[in-house]
């Protein structure tokens, strides 16, 4: 195994880890708020579950990028490509946008989701507005995901 392969593996691992931590944190914030509201009004469970699930997508994006890197490196096929150190660092760098942006955007999206959950508690009809506001935060995670994916596909191996 070359140093380049090790560095690329580290990149894939870090991006899945950071985005996963962010999503876990974001979904936790949303879940706590939703549990409080559901204790008073069990009928809102369905609406609030959607809001709580929204910060969960960053973890999926991080996972997705990691898998694409692993597939491109040929790790799953059994004969991995021997990457140069430069290629390894390139893949490592490509994994960072979704890892770092995923970490923070999921936390902030969780806070927005909690605020929207409180809004839904007071006005159950406005849950769609809350979903839209919460989804605004995710835009930047999607942009980061795009950059990561385009970079991973763009690097010559």
């Amino acid at each position, binding site marked *: 195994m070359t140093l380049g392969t090790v560095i690329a593996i580290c990149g894939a691992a870090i991006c899945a880890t950071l985005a996963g931590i962010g999503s876990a944190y974001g979904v936790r914030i949303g879940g706590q708020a939703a549990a409080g509201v559901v204790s008073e009004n069990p009928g809102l469970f369905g609406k609030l579950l959607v809001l709580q699930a929204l910060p969960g*997508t960053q973890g999926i994006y991080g996972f997705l990028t990691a898998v694409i890197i692993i597939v491109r490196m040929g790790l799953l096929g059994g004969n991995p490509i021997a990457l140069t150190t430069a290629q390894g660092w390139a893949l490592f760098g490509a994994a960072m946008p979704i890892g770092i942006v995923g970490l923070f955007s999921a936390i902030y999206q969780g806070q927005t989701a909690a605020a929207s959950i409180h809004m839904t508690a007071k006005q159950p009809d406005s849950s769609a507005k809350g979903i*839209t506001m919460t989804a605004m935060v995710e835009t930047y995670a*999607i942009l980061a995901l*795009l950059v990561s994916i385009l970079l991973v596909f763009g690097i010559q191996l």
Partner: protein
Amino acid sequence: MIVPMKKAELFALKQDRDALLLALQRVGEFMIIPTEEDAQPTGQEDAQQALQQAENTLGFVSQFQEKRSFFAQRPELDLQSFLKEDPEALELEQEAKKIAEQLAAVRSERSTLAAQMEQLTPWLPLDIPLDRLTPTRYASFHTGSISAGAVDPVKQAVEEQGADLTLLAPGPEGLAALLTCLREEEHAVLEAAKAAGFVENTPPRVKGLAKDAYEAYQQQYREAQKLEEQLVAQAEELAGRKEKLELLYEQRKAQADRQAVSAWETAATFRLVGWVRSDRTEAVKKAVAEVTDACALSFTDPTEEDTPPTVTKNNWFVSQFETITDMFSRPTTREGIDPNPVMAPWYWLIFGLMMGDAGYGLVMAIAIFAFKKIKKPKGEFAKLINVLWYSSITTMFCGVLFGSYFGETWHPLLFSPLDAPVPMLIFSIIIGTLHIFSGMILKVVHDIKAGHFWDAMFDQVSWMVLITGLGLLFLPATAAVGKWMAIIGALVILCTAGRGNKGFGKVTGGFLGLYNITGYMSDILSYSRILALSLATGVIGMVMNLLAGMVQGSVIGFVFSLLIYLVGHVFNIAMGLLSAYVHDSRLQYIEFFSKCYEGGGYAFQPLSIDPKYIDVVTHRQSK
């Protein structure tokens, strides 16, 4: 299309009031406008109270109901039987009330007994009746408790004074104990015992031995428990006939809605004002005529000051997507734009692009069809379900286009986003540009109809020319045309964007207008999320197939791989649906509506029978 509204005014005799309101409620086309001169409705409080009572009864009874099966259907009733009063329901209500009261009493008795038993527990080993612990000629008795650590010091202190300490059973405050001493030494013994940690307290006041009293309590407790079981069984039996109570609730709800109507009144007449759809005035006229001819009903067009509610009328396909717009904001007659006919096909297409898997589309189509058949959703929720159902078609279509079948790539007609992300990005951005343009064209058409031809040219068409020109710059063959289109568009904007301002503002307004290019660019780039989401669905599906493929070595592995396929793809479909719904809506709300639509209308909510637990089949529906 927005349906025009008519303002209806109904004068009638007070004696016909109840019958008229019932007729209007049945037809369900009359939205009452409360005015300031209205008299307070009479009988409203009684109706509300009766409704509250029915609601409480239902709440009580449903505690004892068995879990409703997923396949349970809402009962259906025709209007005649809905309006008929059911004496059995009233009896049921009385019975439920009685059981509820008895149950509350027996439960409180049981908890009192439990508390009394708990208090007695520490004194159970005492073989002296609790009411006989009074001082004798020579001896005196003190009861109390000792915390766990202080038992030995207290015992030592008491025995040093020559008195006796009998240790009993542990209780919440510590170990209960009986202190026996000579009367003349009482003071000194107590001092010493308290110093060592003895806390004096009295046992519960009962006659006789603690053990006997405890047994009596226990007996009562068992009886109370038995009674409670009987009452619960009765309540469960009632819960089996819950449908009658639900009907009672719905009847009282309809009654309370009628009673809540306030009207302007004289001694013998009343006046109702309300909104009616202009295409349904005949139905209202007919309903009123069936009750009485001693009334005057007139319809007028709304004036400038009126803000009528909004009803949109579209074909069966578009009308389902109205729920997406309504969640943002309803159209208004003042603005006069109903975005639904343009928005619906785009929502449909973009949803399919985001899911983009033929297999998932098939699963969606079958699962949602089954859900519709079994649960028969109603109202806005039913529309949302239909939107998802229709979108399964575009999902299948895009799946074939991009060659995605349950996460496996197979002969794409166009290209596969996984293998060719850059063409897919360009494709997404072209879709986005067309989507935004369609919104701007809607605005252009509306402006021209309203007589603002030049506004439409300057504010919408100039931008469309500029953006198209910028797009054409990327193709070598059209770069020259694109350059001139972009320049012309930009010049028009520069010259006209400040036309509303005065003096120097005309110049700065032009530059500020051109600065809006950043807004258009970020709107268009926002459509790159179509690529991101279609990749997300595709890659997760692929990973699930990879994982399942890795364990497929043996028979057990094969079974396990089936499980991975099932759970993995169901999860992927669920997350994909959520993401597609949320981000497709967002593209409509933020990127599309900002070009053509404001909204701000409110819903048309006529006086009607709107049951929660049952379905009422009216004559109109049965036709």
